[in-house]
């Protein structure tokens, strides 16, 4: 058994393997992960919107030992990751981290957020830095404004639109 605590290090090996294959192997895999994860969150996201997302990530915050602040606002949700346990473990690793590791988050959660008609913007700060800041908006125009604001910085920005 690979301990659940070590899954992300296995995940990292899978990413490196897929990234070496031709085509968009990583994106296809993240879509498959997204389909699995729908079992755990899609219904609550669709039913309860931002509140359902807040509840899901609050559960994850505890169970995955995340140093993360969640802020539920009237029309958007903010996730401020002070220390990502996933990237931290991949870096505390005798195997080499995948350079695209951080992309998996938007890679799997993005399609679920899209299915719920919400818009996500994520500033990963840097690929070797275990912090990030994400916003999930109901209104696309507000997400676009946030993305435009962030694009003026040197940071690496991902979104589901």
């Amino acid at each position, binding site marked *: *058994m*690979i*301990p*659940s*605590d*070590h*899954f*992300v*290090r*296995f*995940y990292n*090996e*899978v990413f490196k*393997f897929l990234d070496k*294959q031709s085509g968009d192997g990583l994106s296809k*895999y993240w879509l*498959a*992960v997204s389909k*699995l994860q729908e*079992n*755990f969150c899609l219904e609550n996201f669709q039913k309860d919107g931002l509140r359902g997302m807040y509840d899901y990530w609050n559960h*994850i915050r*505890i*169970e*995955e*030992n995340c140093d993360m602040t969640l802020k539920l606002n009237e029309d958007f949700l903010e996730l401020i990751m002070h220390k990502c346990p996933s990237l931290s473990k991949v870096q*505390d*690793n*005798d*195997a*080499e981290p995948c350079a695209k590791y951080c992309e998996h988050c938007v890679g799997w959660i993005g399609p679920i957020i899209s299915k719920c008609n919400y818009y996500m913007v994520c500033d990963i700060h840097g690929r070797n830095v275990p912090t990030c800041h994400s916003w999930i908006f109901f209104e696309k125009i507000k997400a676009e404004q946030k993305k435009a604001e962030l694009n003026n910085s040197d940071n690496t920005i991902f979104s589901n639109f």
Partner: protein
Amino acid sequence: MRYKDRGEVHKDFHAATNMTIDYIVDNFGEDALAMLFRKMATDVYKSIHDKLKKGDASELIEHLKYYLDREKGEYEISENNGTIICEISKCPAVEHIIKSGLTLSPHFCRQTIEVNAGLCEGTPWKTKTELLGCGKCRQVFKLENQQ
């Protein structure tokens, strides 16, 4: 021990492993899956592998006990004259997949078989994992030239 996690345990990661196993087999074949697990064994678990090369199984035993305890597995480990037997009577990973209502991959236990094989590659240890039914197995590690 190189890795020693504390805090909450997020067992849903076993579901992600289960899905990933099927994904790799369906798209790249069983050899690719075996290669990934063996690479995990030699690269991620380099510290255990390096000790096994020197004949030292102490970190392997500590790792097995620590994580099986942490995930509340049911098992017995015995060590006698260069033979280590880890007998799992309730695998916490298999149990979690079934409890979650997911379909257990027919290749799920390859993670144990191949990681163990990878750990012993290039070392004086031989390993064999016998699957004894759902969530049950016997993992044997034997130091070569020992009776």
